[in-house]
């Protein structure tokens, strides 16, 4: 196992950090943080499959592809995040935008079906259109939410506000993913390794910010909005 693969495995395992914090702070979880919990559980499930596959591969027992799970996680994860921001964004036109965007996203997902990325368990196809579309849409939604926070100014302490950290994490994760998909799509071997490295780094950052969001869940009781 080389250093990059080890880093990738560690970043996948790091989803356990928010999972543990969810268990600790379960009493304080608002409806929106419960929605985020669904996202964490989806990622946990995907990463469990990924890490198990890595272990089986390196112990020489079995080699199976896990891209099918990654593809499905990206599709379902998008709907979960979209639903989360559908609830957080108060301006009704943004709600409409999310519904339309979800429709567009579904269309892109359907386009992936012929490649088998969502239908074949041992697929080697990466649903690139879906990733790019979800990254773009989520970036727009997150920026809209940050703008809403600036307009409302209702949050007493922004750095202890869970949805701020969720938004920061999503901004890094999907901003980075968009960069990867746009610039590293047609990659040489060395670039593929960079892609893996960036993805792992972004996942790690995202898991960390989501952990912060759950950690600060108890502070939501002191803020008058978004609940």
């Amino acid at each position: 196992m080389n250093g990059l693969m080890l880093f990738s495995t560690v970043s996948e395992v790091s989803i356990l950090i928010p999972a543990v914090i969810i268990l600790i702070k379960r009493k304080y979880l608002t409806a929106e943080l419960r929605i985020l919990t669904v996202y964490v559980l989806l990622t946990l499930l995907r990463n469990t499959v990924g890490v198990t596959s890595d272990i089986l591969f390196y112990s020489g027992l079995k080699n199976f592809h896990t891209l099918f799970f990654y593809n499905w996680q990206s599709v379902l994860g998008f709907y979960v995040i979209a639903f989360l921001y559908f609830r957080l964004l108060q301006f009704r036109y943004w709600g409409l935008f999310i519904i339309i965007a979800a429709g567009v996203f579904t269309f892109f997902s359907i386009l992936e079906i012929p490649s088998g990325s969502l239908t074949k368990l041992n697929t080697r196809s990466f649903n690139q259109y879906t990733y790019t579309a979800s990254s773009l849409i989520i970036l727009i939604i997150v920026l809209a939410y940050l703008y809403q926070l600036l307009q409302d100014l209702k949050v007493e302490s922004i750095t202890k506000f869970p949805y701020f950290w969720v938004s920061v994490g999503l901004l890094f994760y999907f901003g980075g993913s968009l960069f990867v998909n746009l610039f590293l799509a047609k990659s040489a071997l060395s670039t593929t390794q960079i892609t893996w490295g960036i993805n792992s780094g972004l996942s790690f950052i995202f898991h960390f910010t989501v952990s912060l969001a759950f950690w600060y869940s108890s502070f939501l009781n002191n803020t008058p909005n978004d609940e």
Partner: protein
Amino acid sequence: MSDLQLIFLGSSGLLVLIIFCILFVVYYKKKQAEQKMNIQELKAEMHKRLLESSLEVQEVERRRIAKDLHDEVGAMLSVTKMSFNQLLKKINTAGELNEQGQQTKEFLEESISQVRRISRELVPSTLEDFGLIIAIDEFIQKIHIATGVLFIFNHEGIEDTHRFDNKIELTIYRIAQELVNNALKHAEAEEISLKLSVQQNKLIFVFTDNGKGFNLEAVKKDVKSGLGLRNIESRLSVVNGTFTIQSSQEKGTNTTIEIPLFS
């Protein structure tokens, strides 16, 4: 695009995101601080307006009571006195009745004079008609005649007929009344000095008495006796005025009031 270029591009993007997040937090906190300041200013303004309207209501009510006293009670007492005079003429044969009648007449005269006095004190008509200097002068003269307390009123540089803003005139007049009342009632002062001057676009009113003085901190804490001070504070806040009091036991009291003049 080479690997190095991609790494550079990716790192730059990451850096931009980090800077964006930091700037967001900084800007958010700045806007929040501005909002808090605006809210505080609005609250202070609202408090000031409330005080202003409450003082206005107080003055209107004083005016109404004064008018009722003068026009109705005063008039009724005058009529009663006239009627009683007629009655007195008819009973002047019986010595004892005559004496009692004279006494009742004196009571009536005293009542009429008291009603007139209260009515005048409730509404400082001299203040409205002739201004602050003449009104204070008239007020201290009356107190001097009634109590014998010596007054020194210095208003160097301000003409007798000079007029200030109505609110400022009423504020100073009412505060002067309050301070004179305190000096006579609580401090048992024998000499009171009032100084009115205009310096650097500010109206300065200095009130000094040679009374017993008081413990300022103790009075501030006491809800009942601190009422006068709070009243002064409230009145001054309406005209953006400030005041300082220096007092110590047996050494008299010195009160300085400053009100900005916006001409």
